[in-house]
C-alpha cells in the first residue's frame, strides 16, 4: 500500500472517482460504442457500383478492385516494352538519344476520336514521363522489376517494384544531351548505373528482388502518365484527366550474358488492339508502340505508368474510413474529461481534493494519467474492434478495401487510441483553466473537429485546407492516414482526398503540443488561483 502522499495513491483516488460516477462510465462506454457503431454506418450505407443496375440488385457481381502487385499494393503497370529474355546473370546497356512527349493541354481526351488520334495534342513531357531500361520478371501485370530511367523533369532515377524510387543525377535528357543507362543482374541483386559518355559510370542504387527467376525479360521501355487538369469546386474538386504520350529513342543497346531469341517489338497500335475497348484504337494508345531505328536501336512510344496507383474515389474503401466513428468517440471522451475537473469545482469537491493533496500540480497530473490511460484503452479497444469489424462488413458487401501495410494498420489503431488519450488530457487542461464544463467542451470540440470539417468538406481552397491540417489540432487525424502520397506519382494529394500535409506521428505531435501548452497553463493556474 503506497503512502498517503505518494503519486500512486493519488492516481488510485482519481481512478476511484472516475469509475464510481455512473454518468462518466456511461460516457466512456458511449465513446467506444460510437467509434465502432458510426464506423459501421459507412459500409452499411454504401454499395459498390456494380451492385445495382438500373435500381435492381444483381447478385453476380464481384469487385476485385484495381490491379495490384504481389504484396497487394495497387499499381499501374502499363508501358511499351521492347524486350528479350536474359538467362542468369548479365546486364543491359542502352543510350537514350531523344526523349519527347505529347499531351492534351486542357486535360481530357481527343475531341474527335475518329480523326487523327493525336489531334489537339501539344508537345511536351509530363514531369513523370519515363523512358529507360527495364529488367522484369516476365511481362505479366504487376510482376517484379527494376528500371533505370529518364523522367520529364525529375532527372535520371532508379525505380523498382513500383514503390521504390532512388534519385540519380538531375539532368534533362534530350537529343543534345543523350544519356547512357545500365542495369546489371547478379543473383537477386540489380544495380543501376548512369553515364554521360558511356565510359565513366556512376552507380545510382541497388535493388534486391527476391525470388527473381533465372529467366527475366530485359529491354527498353517508354511510358507517360495521364495529364490532369484539377478544378476545385464546391464540395470537392473535379479532375479532367487524359492520356499522354512519351517517345524515347534508344541506340547502342547491348545485352551481356546468356540471352536468347530475338527482340519482341510491340507494333504500333498493338496495345490498343489488346485493350479492345471501343475508342481505344482511336485514342493516343493507337500510336503507342515501337519501331526499329538506326544503329540497331528502337524508337519507343508509350502511354500509362509503371508506379503505385493512388486510391480513386468510388473504386473502393480506404482502410481509415473504418475509423470515421472516431469523431463520435472523441466528443464523448472530451465531455467526460472536462467533467472530471469541472464537477469538482461545481460540487466543491476540489477543496477536499486539494486539502488531501496540497501539492496541486500532482492532483492535475494524477487526473491526466487516469484520463489519458482510460481513454487510450477505450480508444484502443474500439479501434481494434472497428477496423476488422468494418472490413468484415465491407467484404461481405463485396467491396474492395485498399491496401495498407500491416504496420500502417497497427499505427492507425494505436494512433487513434493516442488521439483520444491526448484529446482527453487537452480537454482536462482546458476545463481546469476555464472551470466551466460547457465552455471547455465547446472550445476543445471546435478546435479539433471544426478545422477538420473546414479542411475536408468546405468551400476553402486546397491551400487553406492544408494550412488548417498543418497548424490546428486537426492535424492529428493524419495518424489515421494509410493512403500514401507517392512523390513519384502526380495526383491531387489534398485533405479533401484524405491526404494530410504532415506525416502521421508529426500530425499527432501537433495535437500533443496544444495539449502540453494547455496543460502548462492549467498547472500554473491551478497552483496560483484560489479554489
Amino acid at each position, binding site marked *: 500500500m503506497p503512502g498517503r502522499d505518494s503519486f500512486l495513491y493519488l492516481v488510485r483516488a482519481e481512478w476511484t472517482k472516475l469509475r464510481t460516477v455512473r*454518468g462518466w462510465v456511461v*460516457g466512456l462506454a458511449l465513446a467506444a460504442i460510437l467509434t465502432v457503431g*458510426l464506423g459501421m*454506418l*459507412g459500409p452499411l*450505407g*454504401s*454499395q459498390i457500383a456494380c451492385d445495382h443496375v438500373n435500381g435492381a440488385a444483381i447478385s453476380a457481381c464481384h469487385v476485385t478492385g484495381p490491379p495490384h502487385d504481389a504484396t497487394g499494393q495497387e499499381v499501374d503497370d502499363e508501358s511499351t516494352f521492347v524486350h528479350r529474355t536474359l538467362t542468369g546473370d548479365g546486364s543491359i546497356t542502352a543510350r537514350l538519344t531523344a526523349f519527347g512527349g505529347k499531351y492534351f493541354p486542357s486535360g481530357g481526351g481527343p475531341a474527335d476520336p475518329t480523326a487523327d488520334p493525336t489531334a489537339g495534342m501539344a508537345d511536351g513531357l509530363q514531369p513523370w514521363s519515363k523512358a529507360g531500361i527495364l529488367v522484369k520478371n516476365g511481362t505479366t501485370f504487376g510482376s517484379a522489376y527494376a528500371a533505370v530511367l529518364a523522367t520529364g523533369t525529375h532527372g535520371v532515377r532508379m525505380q523498382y517494384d513500383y514503390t521504390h524510387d532512388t534519385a540519380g543525377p538531375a539532368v534533362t535528357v534530350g537529343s543534345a544531351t543523350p544519356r547512357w543507362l545500365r542495369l546489371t543482374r547478379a543473383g537477386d541483386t540489380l544495380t543501376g548505373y548512369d553515364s554521360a559518355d558511356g565510359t565513366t559510370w556512376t552507380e545510382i542504387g541497388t535493388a534486391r528482388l527476391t525470388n527473381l527467376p533465372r529467366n527475366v525479360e530485359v529491354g527498353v521501355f517508354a511510358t507517360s502518365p495521364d495529364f490532369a487538369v484539377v*478544378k*476545385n*469546386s*464546391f464540395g470537392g474538386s*473535379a479532375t479532367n484527366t487524359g492520356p499522354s504520350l512519351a517517345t524515347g529513342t534508344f541506340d547502342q543497346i547491348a545485352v551481356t550474358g546468356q540471352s536468347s531469341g530475338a527482340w519482341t517489338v510491340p507494333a504500333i497500335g498493338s496495345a490498343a488492339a489488346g485493350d479492345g475497348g471501343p475508342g481505344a484504337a482511336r485514342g493516343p494508345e493507337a500510336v503507342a508502340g515501337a519501331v526499329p531505328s538506326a544503329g540497331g536501336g528502337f524508337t519507343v512510344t508509350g502511354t500509362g505508368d509503371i508506379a503505385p496507383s493512388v486510391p480513386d474515389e*468510388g473504386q473502393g*474503401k480506404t482502410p481509415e*474510413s473504418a475509423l*470515421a466513428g472516431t*469523431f*463520435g468517440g472523441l*466528443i*464523448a471522451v*472530451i*465531455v467526460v474529461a*472536462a*467533467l472530471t475537473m*469541472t464537477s469538482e469545482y*461545481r460540487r466543491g469537491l476540489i477543496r477536499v481534493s486539494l486539502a488531501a493533496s496540497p501539492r496541486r500540480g500532482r492532483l492535475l497530473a494524477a487526473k491526466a494519467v487516469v484520463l489519458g490511460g482510460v481513454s487510450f484503452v477505450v480508444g484502443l479497444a474500439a479501434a481494434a474492434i472497428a477496423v476488422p469489424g468494418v472490413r468484415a462488413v465491407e467484404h461481405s458487401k463485396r467491396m474492395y478495401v485498399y491496401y495498407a501495410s500491416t504496420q500502417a494498420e497497427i499505427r492507425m489503431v494505436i494512433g487513434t487510441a493516442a488521439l483520444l488519450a491526448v484529446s482527453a488530457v487537452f480537454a482536462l487542461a482546458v476545463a481546469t483553466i476555464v472551470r*466551466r*464544463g*460547457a*465552455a*471547455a*467542451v*465547446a472550445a476543445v*470540440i*471546435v478546435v479539433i*473537429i*471544426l478545422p*477538420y*470539417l*473546414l479542411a*475536408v*468538406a*468546405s*468551400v*476553402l*481552397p486546397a*491551400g*487553406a485546407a492544408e494550412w488548417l491540417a498543418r497548424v490546428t489540432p486537426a492535424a492529428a487525424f493524419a495518424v489515421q492516414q494509410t493512403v500514401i502520397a507517392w512523390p513519384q506519382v502526380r495526383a491531387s494529394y489534398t485533405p479533401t482526398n484524405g491526404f494530410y500535409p504532415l506525416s502521421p506521428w508529426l500530425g499527432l505531435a501537433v495535437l500533443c503540443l496544444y495539449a502540453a501548452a494547455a496543460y502548462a497553463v492549467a498547472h500554473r493556474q491551478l497552483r496560483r488561483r484560489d479554489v
Partner: protein
Amino acid sequence: MNPFRDALHAEWTKLRTVAGTAWLLATTFLLTVGLSAVSAATVTCDGTRCGEDPAKVGLLGVMAGQAVVAVLAVLAVGEEYGTGMIRVTFAAMPRREVVLAAKATVVAAVTAAAGVLAVLASALVALALLPGHGFTPANGYADLATAATLRAAAGSVLYLVLIALLGVGVTTLLRDSAAAVGAVLGLLYLFPVLAQVISNPDWHRHALQLAPMQAGLDVQATIDVAGQPLSPWQGLGVLALWAFGVLGLGGLTLRMRDA
C-alpha cells in the same frame, strides 16, 4: 398579470446579468465574421462556372459561430441545473413549460440580434472582397446582391436562432451543460463527417437531408439550388423540425420529471 410576460422578464434579467452572455455574443460575432472573411479572402474563382457558391463562401463563418450560439443556449438552461437555481425558478413559477418557452424566446432573441450583426458584417465583407476574386459577371456571377443572397443572409440568421433553440431543448433533456454541448455539437458536426464515408448516393443524400447542419445550411444556396439535397426553405424546415422536436420533448420531460 400575464405569466408569460413575467417569465420573459425574469429570464431576460437572468441572461442579461450573467457575465458570460455578453462575451459569448461578442465571440459569436467575431468567429462568424472572422471565418467568413478568411474564406472570402482565400477562395478565388478562376473561370466560368467555377462551382463556388458566393453566399456559402461569404457566410462560411456561420459554421463556427453556431458553436458559440450553442454554448450560450446550453448555459442559459444548464447553469440553472448546475447551481440548483432551477428549483427556485420552478418554485416561483410552477408552470414549467412557460419558463421553458420564456427561456427559449429570450435566448432566440439575443441570438437573432447577434446573428443579424454577424451575418450582415460577413455579407458586407464578402460583397467587398468576392468581386475582386473572380466572382464577376464575366465568370457567370451577374450581381452578388440579389434576392437569393438576401434570402441566404436572412436564412443564416434564422439558422443561428434555430441552433439556439436546439441547444435549449437538448439541455432541458440532458440537464447537464457539458454533456449538452457535446450532444449539440455532435449532432451538428458528426453528420457531415459520416456523410463522407457513405458512398451510396441515395443514403448520402438522405444523410445530408437529415443532418441538422447540412440541411439547415441549404438555405445559403444561391447557385445550383435545384442540385442541393433540399430546397433552401425545406432545409431550414428540417432544422426547425429538429429544434422544435427536441424542444417539445424537453418540455414534456420537464413536466414529468423532478427538477
